[in-house]
């Protein structure tokens, strides 16, 4: 008996939700233009922070790939012998901050230069080898702070004349990344406020339009949820549709700018790094995140606004 009553209660609840969801969908059919306009506004509100978040993630991957592939080249004094150069290289390999240290002797450097430059004959006729020995160092960490410290240490190491690194580029991109991250956070916050306001005002208009209906429902025994449910379904469907549309437009935008972006980065002589690096990508957002968060945000903002308004209309 108790089980049957429970089952009936569940059926009743399902019937209510089913009816209200259908009624909400019919509302879209009744007002197609205003519904579409609202969905498009929400779609744009969602699109901008999504794109900026993707740009932040893309830049982050760029920073990471830079840090991972960062190399320091320590040039030794020309008078350093090959044996001493080998000793310096081996000593550096023992440093915990260094992953690898590979010595290129002055003879090997000249050989390489002769082969790659096409100036082999000229190089062979030189009275002395003008190229210094060098040690290519891969840091054990991607932390720019530690790499900076390591560079200073290397500069102070006896036998090393100078140290060159890509650290400056890494710092520039990192600075871009941090700026964009702040911008993206602010944009997301504004969008959240915008989205809440849009759905809040939509709920406000709807509640005032249906004021009489809510009063009647209240008098004949409808609860707050009986009044609010159709509005919540409308908001949920609008949010869902806006999220799905925003995702479609987002994917299209990302695909359109991806190649342009690689060309642009190529202007800064970074293209070889980016193309060779498997860690660089322009990450696409998970569609579920965008659609579900859009539907949830619209539902929640409608709930808060409609709840307060209906309460004012019916309980005061």
């Amino acid at each position, binding site marked *: 008996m108790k089980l049957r009553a429970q089952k009936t209660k569940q059926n009743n609840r399902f019937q209510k939700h089913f009816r209200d969801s259908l009624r909400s969908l019919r509302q879209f059919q009744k007002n197609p233009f205003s519904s579409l306009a609202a969905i498009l506004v929400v779609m744009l509100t969602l699109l901008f922070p999504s794109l900026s978040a993707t740009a932040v993630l893309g830049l982050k991957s760029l920073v990471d790939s830079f840090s991972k592939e960062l190399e320091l080249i320590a040039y030794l004094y020309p008078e350093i012998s090959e044996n001493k150069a080998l000793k310096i290289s081996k000593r550096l390999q023992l440093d915990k901050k260094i992953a690898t240290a590979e010595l290129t002797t002055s003879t090997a450097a000249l050989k390489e230069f002769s082969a790659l430059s096409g100036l082999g004959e000229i190089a062979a006729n030189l009275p002395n080898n003008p190229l210094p020995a060098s040690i290519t160092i891969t840091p054990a960490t991607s932390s720019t702070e530690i790499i900076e410290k390591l560079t200073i240490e290397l500069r102070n190491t006896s036998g090393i004349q100078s140290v060159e690194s890509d650290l400056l580029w890494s710092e520039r991109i990192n600075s871009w990344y941090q700026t964009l991250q702040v911008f993206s956070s602010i944009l997301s916050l504004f969008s959240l406020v915008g989205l809440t306001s849009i759905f809040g005002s939509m709920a406000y208009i709807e509640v005032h339009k249906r004021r*009489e209906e809510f009063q*009647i429902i209240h008098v004949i*025994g409808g609860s707050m949820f009986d009044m609010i449910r159709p509005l919540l379904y409308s908001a949920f469907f609008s949010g869902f549709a806006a999220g799905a549309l925003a995702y479609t437009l987002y994917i299209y935008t990302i695909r359109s700018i991806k190649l342009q972006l690689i060309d642009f980065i190529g202007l800064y002589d970074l293209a070889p790094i980016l193309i060779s690096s498997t860690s660089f990508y322009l990450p696409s957002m998970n569609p579920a995140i965008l659609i579900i968060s859009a539907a949830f945000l619209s539902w929640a903002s409608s709930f808060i606004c409609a709840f307060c308004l209906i309460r004012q209309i019916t309980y005061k």
Partner: protein
Amino acid sequence: MIQFDRVSKRYPSGQQALQNISFELDRGEFTFLTGHSGAGKSTLLKLVLGLDKASAGIVTVAGHNIVQLTPEKTAARRRIIGAVFQDHQLLSDRTVFDNVALPLEISGFSQRELRSRVRAALDKVGLLRVEKAMPAGLSGGQQQRIGIARAIVNSPSIILADEPTGNLDSALSNEIMDLFTQFKSLGVCVLVASHDKHLINRFSQRTLVLKDGNLIADIPGEQGETACAKDQTKQ
């Protein structure tokens, strides 16, 4: 079914709408609530419906003290009450059928049961043939009958009517009152607020007379006619 125990209602503006009202209405009892405009009739009905809270005293509806219930429980309790209003309170953008179906939708009835109950209610008030019409296209009498169909569709234990014949001619008023007396015989407690002395005299039922928020007379059925007439003379 309805019990008022020393109930008072004072609005925040300071107006004393009801003062120390006590009475009891049983199952299957038909009662008129009368008094001049502003005597407190509508306030009393609002207290029964739980749309307003009493400032003092106990309002018991179907065994529950309505003052102590939460808004959700009060709403649930309201579902055993069928309310009829002078201004009909129908939804203009829904058909007659949908208007009558509203209480059943709230109660979560299945589509099949909902359809059969709505048709039965519309049949009872003689409006089955206009179920697909919009209320605005119907006469005042028909709109009032839609309101009654909506009040009875959920098989309520109590029917409250606030000036249900206010805008109707006497033939239609009699027709509507006949419907109410039929519910009395089905065990429904009917409370009709009206200041129409002719109507009250004609049906000679138990009558509660309110004046300036005070219950000045509780007249049993058969004597209702004379007592009411006396009260009207006094006024």
